[in-house]
């Protein structure tokens, strides 16, 4: 059994241990009550299994005893006492940090040791977290009565939200603002729900609508718009750290994750109950039957960054795996529970009552999940595909067998005549450190090496060369291939887009070894400065290398050397076909997947009869036909929901002491999180239960009606997005280090409402947006600001800057260029390059294919994208609970100078001419309506007209797109 000290207990104990001990002198020292608190308060922070400073733990008696820090009955010989006692005016050696032990405490320790140092084996001393299970966010949702305020204005006496907000304002002597005007309101509400500006027509209609329910109808219209899901889906994608590249060193782009983005948008548009939505994130593949639209939710598990660089070091492999699961655990805790579970990875959480056991219970829960694709399809689609493939695959196997049989027959015949063939291979095999050919002098302008078979895989014809020398047939021969002698090398090479020459043919004639030409075709051609008599070539891939056998130096096996006068008609002057084959070791069984040996490759070529060639050709034709038919059977769509692996999920699972997979601590099983044991139904699963059951159980526990965190966290997020700041201003952290709720009762009221409304967000939006709190103006008042500068109590609606996505969408929208196509693969504002690792280079030109809403951008990690990055689009390495909102000169540079602004300015100008004709005044008025939902003042018209007059309408549009008013919502 494990003992944990609750706050209450410890306070009592603290009082006890600090009390004079005189009266207790007759009683033996009680370890648990008197000694353990001393260790807990002064020692275990550093000396615990997870920290283990000085290789010492005071969690249990073992270390103290082994090291003879404590010798039972002999206090004076116990080192422990020495280090905590002041000595000759020097402070005690321990504790290193914090106050020394009191004399009373030291005396207690002395007595405890003298009395035999009894430490019951079931008592483990642990450091106590700052908050315990009495922490506010861990309490059940309160059944709150909205407060009654005497002086509340009538309009504020309708929506319960206003009762809560007004009461808090009144406490501080604050009054709310009057309602916002209709122009501000429609702009605010439209951005809030759709992330787009209202059209001038929508503004006019709303402003002049005599219906007293006009505002409520507006909210309904907006909630019905498919753009709503795009806007609020984007919020959720931030929370679940959705990014479409795997990050880390390779940072490979992921092209199969967009179905999750579409699923999020669709679910939100459908107003899917959010508890179900959350369950689908964790276990949709488990309870959703085979419905791809449910299973896709589990892409949440693997939407984060992970390290996929191969590693052979076993300890590192374990560490990387632990990091990957840590990412899943953290993201789950933050997104749904507002808990920082990751802090309990190396030691018990220092602030919140989350133990390492809790953390590793989650580890066991997710252990079966790995990153990757899984084909998602209905059972029907699967069986259809299987039915179609079955006969084709059978036919394919038959044909392949026939091919192999034929090949074997030929080879067998050839092996019987091996002597004959070996006689025609008298010369030594090619040598990677230098292969030479001499021939009768010939005048050549061009010389080329043609690879007929590669030395590792003779069926391939690509190769590497570090140097290729061509020697003149002169009394003093020169290497005329050298670049310094006028040679010029050509040949298709492996390319790195942003560093083109890296593996180019120039390496073959630079007179230096070490760097190689890496061919992608069979040819390396060298053009000489002038036609020259030559009679010798020398070439290599591993000259001077100590380990030429390494595959890095892959070389030719069969080749020919050809010369030409004009670079088009070629004449062979030498070849390597009479060399012995490379690597001609005694036959070993080779799998069919492996290429044949070089010798067999040659033998097959030489031994096959014309008739057999015809048979082979026929088989190839048929095989190709079957393969074509196979590719015509539609693939099941791969989706990045990860893979599920029974082996990985095999326990037993342990706490990793100090977070190290090499240091296994106590056993753990999949279980609920202990901080909520008192309020939500806890569970423990057997360690060997199927991994799918573990996730399903967790999903149910997170969304259990008695789990107070999930609805609180979600209600707070909704509030956060409506008002810019949550009731708790740390939406991912409801723990000790996070913020406290400004309106705790309101938060619980909203959380209850959420549950009562079937976890549907649209009902929440209605409730919030119809409140006077939401509808009040954003007007600034000095007096109120003096009390509450951030308007956390909501004496005004807090204005906000648009997000990066909103800014781009707005510009496209007012320029009349927004492509409203929903869903499908994303577009890219970067150029993607891959050379083992990936590089993302921002585009200078954004074409019409990028004119979709920014939520459809394929956001890659560790990339920089013009406009989006500068306006604080997060990198999605972590869950982003809210966007930063910063201002920088870089924003100005991009908005002024990137071609996107210029294109949009031009499009907006065209639109103005189209919609407002040639009259400048009308053009300006139209522009103002489009950009700001208002009419220009006379001064504004005259200033704008001046710019058009002196320059042109496009110039004005460029200015308007750069204005602050465009990107701030009041």
């Amino acid at each position, binding site marked *: 059994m494990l003992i944990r000290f609750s706050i209450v207990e410890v306070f009592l104990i603290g009082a006890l241990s600090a009390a004079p001990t005189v009266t207790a002198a007759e009683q033996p020292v009680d370890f648990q009550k008197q000694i353990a608190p001393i260790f807990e308060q002064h020692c275990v922070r550093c000396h615990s299994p997870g920290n283990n400073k000085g290789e010492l733990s005071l969690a249990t008696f073992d270390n103290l005893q082994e090291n003879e820090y404590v010798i039972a009955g002999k206090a004076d010989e116990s080192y422990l006492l020495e280090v905590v006692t002041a000595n000759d005016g020097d402070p005690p050696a321990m504790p290193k*940090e914090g106050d020394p032990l009191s004399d009373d405490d030291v005396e207690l320790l002395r007595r405890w040791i003298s009395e035999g140092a009894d430490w019951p084996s079931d008592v483990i001393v642990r450091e106590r977290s*700052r908050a315990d299970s009495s922490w506010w966010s861990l309490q059940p949702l309160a059944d709150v009565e909205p407060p009654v305020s005497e002086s509340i204005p009538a309009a504020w006496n309708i929506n319960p939200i206003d009762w809560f907000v007004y009461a808090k304002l009144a406490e501080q002597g604050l009054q709310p603002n009057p309602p916002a005007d209709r122009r501000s309101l429609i702009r605010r509400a439209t951005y809030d729900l759709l992330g787009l500006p209202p059209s001038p027509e929508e503004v006019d209609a709303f402003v002049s609508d005599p219906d007293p329910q006009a505002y409520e109808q507006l909210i309904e219209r907006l909630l019905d718009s498919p753009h709503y899901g795009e806007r609020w889906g984007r919020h959720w994608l931030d929370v679940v750290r959705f990014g479409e590249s795997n*990050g*880390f*060193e390779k940072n490979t782009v992921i092209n199969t994750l967009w179905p999750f983005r579409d699923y999020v948008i669709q679910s939100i548009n459908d107003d899917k109950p959010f508890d179900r939505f959350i369950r689908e994130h964790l276990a949709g593949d488990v309870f959703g039957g085979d419905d791809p639209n449910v299973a896709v939710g589990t892409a949440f598990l693997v939407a984060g960054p992970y*390290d996929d*660089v191969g590693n*052979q070091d076993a300890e*590192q492999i374990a*560490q990387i795996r632990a*990091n990957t699961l840590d990412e899943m655990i953290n993201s789950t805790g933050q997104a749904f529970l507002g808990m*920082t579970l*990751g802090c309990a990875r190396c030691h018990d959480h220092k602030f919140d009552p989350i133990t390492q056991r809790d953390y590793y219970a989650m580890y066991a829960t997710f252990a079966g999940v790995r990153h990757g694709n899984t084909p998602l399809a209905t059972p029907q689609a699967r069986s259809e595909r299987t039915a179609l493939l079955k006969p084709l695959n059978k036919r394919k196997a038959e044909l392949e067998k026939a091919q192999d049989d034929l090949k074997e027959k030929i080879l067998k015949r050839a092996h019987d005549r091996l002597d004959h063939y070996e006689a025609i291979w008298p010369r030594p095999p090619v040598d990677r450190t230098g292969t030479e050919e001499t021939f009768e002098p010939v005048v050549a302008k061009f010389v080329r090496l043609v690879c007929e078979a590669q030395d590792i895989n003779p069926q391939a014809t690509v190769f590497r060369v570090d140097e290729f020398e061509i020697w003149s047939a002169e009394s003093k021969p020169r290497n005329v291939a050298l670049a310094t002698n006028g040679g010029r090398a050509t040949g298709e090479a492996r390319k*790195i887009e942003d*560093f083109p020459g*890296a593996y180019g043919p120039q390496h073959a004639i630079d007179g230096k070894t070490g*760097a190689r030409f890496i061919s992608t075709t069979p040819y390396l051609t060298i053009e000489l400065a002038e036609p020259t008599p030559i009679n010798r070539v020398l070439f290599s891939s591993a000259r001077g*290398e100590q380990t030429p056998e*390494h595959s*890095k130096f892959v070389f030719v096996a069969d080749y020919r050397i050809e010369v030409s006068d004009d670079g088009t008609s070629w004449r062979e002057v030498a070849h390597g076909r009479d060399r012995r084959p490379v690597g001609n070791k005694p036959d070993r069984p080779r799998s069919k997947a492996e290429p044949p040996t070089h010798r067999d490759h040659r033998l097959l070529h030489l031994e096959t009869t014309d008739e057999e060639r015809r048979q082979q050709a026929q088989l190839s034709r048929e095989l190709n036909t079957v393969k074509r038919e196979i590719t015509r059977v539609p693939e099941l769509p791969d989706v990045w929901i990860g893979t599920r692996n029974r082996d990985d999920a095999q326990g037993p699972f342990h706490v990793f002491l100090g977070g190290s997979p090499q240091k296994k601590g106590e056993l753990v099983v999949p279980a609920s999180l202990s901080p909520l044991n008192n309020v939500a139904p806890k569970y423990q699963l057997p360690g060997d239960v199927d991994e799918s059951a573990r996730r399903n159980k967790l999903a149910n526990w997170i969304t259990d009606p008695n789990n107070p965190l999930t609805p609180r966290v979600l209600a707070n997020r909704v509030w956060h997005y409506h008002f*810019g700041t949550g009731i708790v*201003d*740390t939406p991912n952290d409801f723990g000790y*280090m*996070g913020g*406290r709720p*400004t309106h705790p009762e309101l938060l619980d009221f909203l959380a209850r409402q959420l549950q009562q409304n079937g976890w549907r967000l649209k009902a929440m939006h209605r409730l919030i947006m119809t409140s006077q709190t939401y509808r009040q103006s954003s007007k*600034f008042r000095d007096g109120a*600001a003096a009390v509450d500068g*951030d308007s956390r109590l909501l004496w005004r609606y807090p*204005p906000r800057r648009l997000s990066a996505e909103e800014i781009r969408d707005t510009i496209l929208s007012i320029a009349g260029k927004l492509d409203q196509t929903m869903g499908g693969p994303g577009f890219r504002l970067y150029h993607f390059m891959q050379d083992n*690792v990936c590089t993302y280079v921002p585009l200078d030109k954004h074409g019409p294919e990028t004119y979709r809403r920014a939520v459809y951008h394929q956001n890659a990690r*560790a*990339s*920089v994208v*013009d406009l989006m990055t500068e306006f*604080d689009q997060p*990198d999605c*390495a*972590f*869950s982003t*609970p*809210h966007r*930063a*909102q*910063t*201002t*920088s*000169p*870089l924003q100005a*540079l991009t908005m*002024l100078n*990137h071609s996107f602004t210029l294109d949009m300015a031009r499009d907006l100008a065209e639109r103005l001419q189209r919609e407002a004709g040639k009259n400048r005044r009308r053009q300006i008025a139209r522009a103002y309506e489009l950009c700001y939902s208002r009419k220009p003042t006379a001064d*504004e018209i005259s200033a704008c007209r001046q710019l058009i007059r*002196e*320059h042109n309408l496009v110039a004005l549009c*460029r*200015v308007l797109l750069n204005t*602050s008013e465009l990107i*701030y919502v009041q």
Partner: protein
Amino acid sequence: MNLREFSFGNPTRERGNSDFHPTIAIEDCNTLLTSNNADERLENDMSKTALDLSLLSRRNFLGNMYTGLAGVGLMHLLHNRAQADQSDWQPGRGMSHFPPKAKRVLQIFCPGAASHMDLWEYKPALEKYHGKPLPGEENFVSFQGKNGNLMKSPWAFAPAGECGKHMSTLMPHMSRHADDIAFLHAMHSKTNTHGPGCVFMNTGHPTEGFPSAGAWLSYALGSENDNLPTYVAIPDIRGEPPNGKANWANGFLPARHQAMMMSDQQPIRNLSRPPVISQAEETASRKLLDQLNRNFAEANPANTDLQARIAAYTLAARMQLSAPEVSNLSSESRATHEFYGTHDENDLKAAYARNCLLARRLLERGVRCVNLYCASRASGVDGLLNWDAHKTLKPDYERHCPIFDQPTAALLSDLKQSGLLDDTLVLWTTEFGRMPTHQSGTAGRDHNPDGFTCWMMGAGVKGGVSYGATDEFGRRAEVHPTTVWDFYATVLHLLGFDHEQLTWYHNGLDRRLTDVHGHVVEEILA
């Protein structure tokens, strides 16, 4: 702990990033607060109102814009935090916790894991035991697989400078700086993989998403020069380092703290006015824009963002003038160009040399932090384009070192001669080391996270010293093992910061460049 009151004008609070609070800088997550009752501590603070708009000068803005009305907040009630002792310190205003030795930082990064025992740390035992198994670790498996026997360095080491430090003869130019360098020979890393390793070396965390040291510096100090970025990353012509832009990212800090990328080969993005726009049109457009933005700001006086935005456009215009000037290397003398090697026949060397010269020009104009990469490409064929000499150490380093040696040494000499080195801290870093053995079947070395060398030089750093050592073969940090966190604790110390007090709240923790670790390496301080 001495708890002080909040300063309500504390500009560390950023609107829209409410995850950040004026905060106690938690010493580490072990630190205990003395009270659980925030209200008790803070009840007297309610009356304070301290928004002073005049603080929003141009300079403050660049370093540390308030974005929103930071002034009076009720939020302090809502956090269990106390203010750190350095309560009068404010980020982004050129202030430090205590008087600094260094005002700016040049960090030269050689990605791919530059080999300590072939460049900086002389290991005579490798010569003696060349070809013998590594005792206790015969045939051990590391990143790429099996290792062979011990392999001596292909290059001789020779004593350099008055201190007589043994340095590789492969870098004759660098050896003339031996007396100014403090080597940290017992560095070790948490990871054996380049990407996480580079990110760890730059951010103190092996996973992405954390701010780089330069971003922390930008946050802590703000700008010294209003016309240029605070933090510049100069990638190598061969490509971006492993994990790319995560190496100079702002992480969870606001976007403005990320490095601006530029090099001699690659100007700052979107810097130039598009050619289709005439100067006259630009001037008139900016005038109108300024007017419209001013009107809007005046109509919304409480929103300081709007004034910051006006300032941002002014600063952008200044940057448009300053950045081309700083990149214009032709104003340097011919002798300088020759000294750096900017016209070397080796294109790669010339390109790096030009970036070295650019780095000096940025530093002398007050850029706080310059990250200069050499042979940085993330991958490709091992060792060809970065320091990752898995299979062919000798030709690889005989290609890289001549590129690195002369220009780097020239840059250091130049900094020294001009006096800039007096208050500039130079760091040389790589993500981890290499094995003392050869990789099985090759003449190269595999990754070694257990021991490697970094060094420092310049402001506040003792020269001609070596701190710590790996074992006799170079396999593991043995004497005074030094972490990346120790490294940055020391760097921050030289810059006048207590690394435990420079924090930013993010998703549940007050995050630090040094995570929850780090000790200042006093032994190398001058």
